[in-house]
């Protein structure tokens, strides 16, 4: 055999091997994936006629947080032996991010939502993490044949998803059929914004500058914070956008420095170049003791100390509800213990317990329903959870939890640790709504 022929055969064999590997890793060819769901969804676990999906950003800096949320949902389903009342369910985990963006991607959210519509035995979706993605998915799956697909988010905090926020058409535009199919267990941003402002007041801060990432969540919580801060008599020196694609923010902070702020409030998510934003804050305005740095829960992620390094030391980060690692109620403690044991982790990410709770909210509604989506949607609201993972709470008629406590964490030695809990009065939370 000539060398040339041998070379051709080797090349052909190599190409075949590459194709075979690709085919093995590609979803639809395996025959095990759920028909209609995109490649961004995993193969199902559990067995049964019905399907429950989760929808989180599984790539980029939020991956550790998202993976724990998926595991929390699985843990609760496992406890139920993948059976909710008389319905046996399979679970799939879908990804709404792209590797290239390293965070949630609007096109992927749209594609996922359209796929969910085509799966007739999909009983519900646990997700999303990002409010911006929920804004896209909610109205699409609301129009699904057979009734809006029930959706329970453990982490969406943007107020306008469930209540009037000052933006035209909200929240009705997310429910074009007129029937709601969305609930959440995360504390809405008006509570967090109010708690952030209250915490700054407790720390004797009078002059604060706000930076937001201009996404639905970031802009929303920035506005909630500004309203609450003004109500408390704090001087808000400005509320401007940071551009995630900018290489650095030194000039931005130099402009802010001329206004002599005592604190900076960051409203947005860390994956929008948050690391550089924190580094430049310290570089221009000084460390976080000199000019206090407070960030919303989009920064409550292990990526914050990782990306910002020592500059993150001493910064405060809030999160709606309780620190999952310090849940004091028996159900919460049991969940944390079981999660740590099952997945061999010490630290639970910010929304892990909330993901478990979101599944329980959906399961409760499924259990009380007649199995149709419309019936599940109906039972999502006005539920009571006296012994929930995240404490005792109710879901109100708009789909919000009756929880208002906000935990303040601090970054210390590269870890995020709880400092205190702030309970903003309802009047302040209402003022934050505008």
């Amino acid at each position, binding site marked *: 055999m000539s060398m040339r022929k041998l070379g051709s055969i080797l090349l052909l064999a190599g190409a075949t091997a590459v194709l075979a590997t690709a085919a093995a890793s590609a979803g639809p060819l395996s025959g095990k994936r759920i028909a209609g769901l995109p490649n961004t969804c995993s193969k199902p676990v559990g067995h049964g006629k019905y399907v429950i999906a989760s929808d989180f950003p599984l790539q980029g800096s939020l991956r550790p947080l998202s993976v724990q949320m998926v595991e929390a949902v699985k843990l609760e389903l496992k406890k139920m032996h993948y059976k909710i009342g008389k319905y046996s369910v399979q679970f799939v985990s879908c990804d709404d991010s792209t*590797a290239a963006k390293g965070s949630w991607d609007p096109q992927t959210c749209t594609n996922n939502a359209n796929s969910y519509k085509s799966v007739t035995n999909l009983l519900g979706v646990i997700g999303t993490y990002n409010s911006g993605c929920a804004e896209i998915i909610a109205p699409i799956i609301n129009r699904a044949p057979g009734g809006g697909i029930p959706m329970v988010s453990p982490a969406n905090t943007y107020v306008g998803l469930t209540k009037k926020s000052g933006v035209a058409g909200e929240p009705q535009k997310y429910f074009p059929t007129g029937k709601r199919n969305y609930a959440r267990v995360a504390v809405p941003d008006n509570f967090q914004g109010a708690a952030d402002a209250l915490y700054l007041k407790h720390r004797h801060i009078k002059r604060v500058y706000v930076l937001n990432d201009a996404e639905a969540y970031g802009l929303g919580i920035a506005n909630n914070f500004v309203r609450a801060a003004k109500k408390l008599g704090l001087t808000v020196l400005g509320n401007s*956008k940071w551009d995630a*694609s900018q290489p650095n923010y030194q*000039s*931005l902070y*130099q402009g802010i420095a001329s206004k002599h702020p005592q604190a900076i409030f960051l409203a947005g998510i860390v994956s929008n170049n948050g690391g550089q934003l924190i580094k430049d804050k310290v570089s221009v305005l000084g460390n976080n003791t000199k000019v206090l740095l407070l960030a919303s829960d989009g920064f409550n992620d292990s990526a914050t100390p990782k*990306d910002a*390094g020592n500059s993150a030391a001493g910064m405060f980060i809030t999160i709606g509800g309780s620190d999952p690692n310090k849940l004091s109620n028996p159900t919460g403690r049991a969940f944390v213990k079981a999660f740590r044991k099952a997945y061999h982790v010490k630290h639970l990410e910010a929304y892990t317990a909330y993901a478990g709770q979101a599944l329980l909210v959906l399961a409760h509604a499924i259990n009380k329903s007649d199995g149709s989506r419309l019936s599940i949607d109906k039972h999502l609201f006005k539920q009571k959870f006296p012994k929930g993972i995240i404490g005792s709470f109710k879901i109100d008629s708009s789909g919000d939890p009756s929880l208002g406590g906000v935990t303040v964490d601090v970054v210390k030695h590269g870890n995020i640790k709880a400092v205190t809990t702030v309970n903003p009065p309802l009047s302040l939370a209402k003022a934050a709504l505008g």
Partner: protein
Amino acid sequence: MGTSVGTAAETSRRPSFALVPRLRSRAVAVVGILLLALVAFWLVENAVHDIRQFALVSLNGITNGSIYALVAIGYTLVYGILELINFAHGDVFSWGAMITYSVAISWLGASGHSGIALFGILAVGLVCAALFCATLNMAVERVAYRRLRNAPRLAPLITAIGMSFVLSNLIAVVYGFNYVSSEPLLPRGALFTIGGQAYGWDKLIVLLITVPTLVSLMIVVKRTRWGKAMRATAQNRDAARLMGIDVDRAIAFAFGLGGALAGIGGFVYLVYFTQGRFDLGFRIGLFAFTAAVLGGIGNILGAALGGYLIGFIENYNSGLTWHAPGPSWTESLVFILLILILVFRPHGLLGESLSTRS
């Protein structure tokens, strides 16, 4: 006798027809001058409003502009010699930043050193980044562009866009999609203060790396044999070949030089901003390309000038406090400026006009 251009009567009427374009060009000039006056007024007003802030933000503009200038020159070198917009150049810059991260931070542990040891480590990082990127850019030319030299212009352009994706995805494969980050490597102590705000040593160090690099490049291009060969190839490839110049090597040299500059730019970026990611080169590459066009593509001094100009725009827009549109408008402003320059001065600020060249 040449081709007839019309009867005497027609010729006599011509000035009246020529009046319209002349008026139009005057109107365009007036609009241009008005726009410039508006920008100048805004800058002066900001300077009067807070001169210290203005000075600090200007200094930031110089620092950022230096990095844009290094990358912009890579674009202009390649365009000057091949009339090709090498869209992969921004990604070569990204590779420079990531190689610096690997060599200086991961392997040699720059974060744990100071003084001479740190200087040595950074010097090694700089050389490695420059060499790697020079080799990478030459390889890109050899593999992707050389065979397309006589193909229609669209072919190498599309290939360049393709190479950009390949290079950035390769970074993602090696380093992942998340940021790589380090603690500050350059000393950040105050060199001097303006209105209580520090101008750090790190900014001066950036200038101490970039400005001599730019000057050295000018010398290489103007004074050395390789530079002359490059310029001759840029002027007329066939004539250069007839004069005994190895055109392929001259072009490869231009790519190598541009790649080395991108590598140095990547190094400076990483040690100054202390983080990098696979898609770093997209925005910086776009801005640097714009800088090259602003300055007059093909003109090295123009590219440097364009780089500094964009550095100023970016920082004035973010940092000035009197009626500044804010950071979310930076990209729009940069490209509005590009459009205005192309309308009022199509050959760029320092570029020769196409008619002169032809």
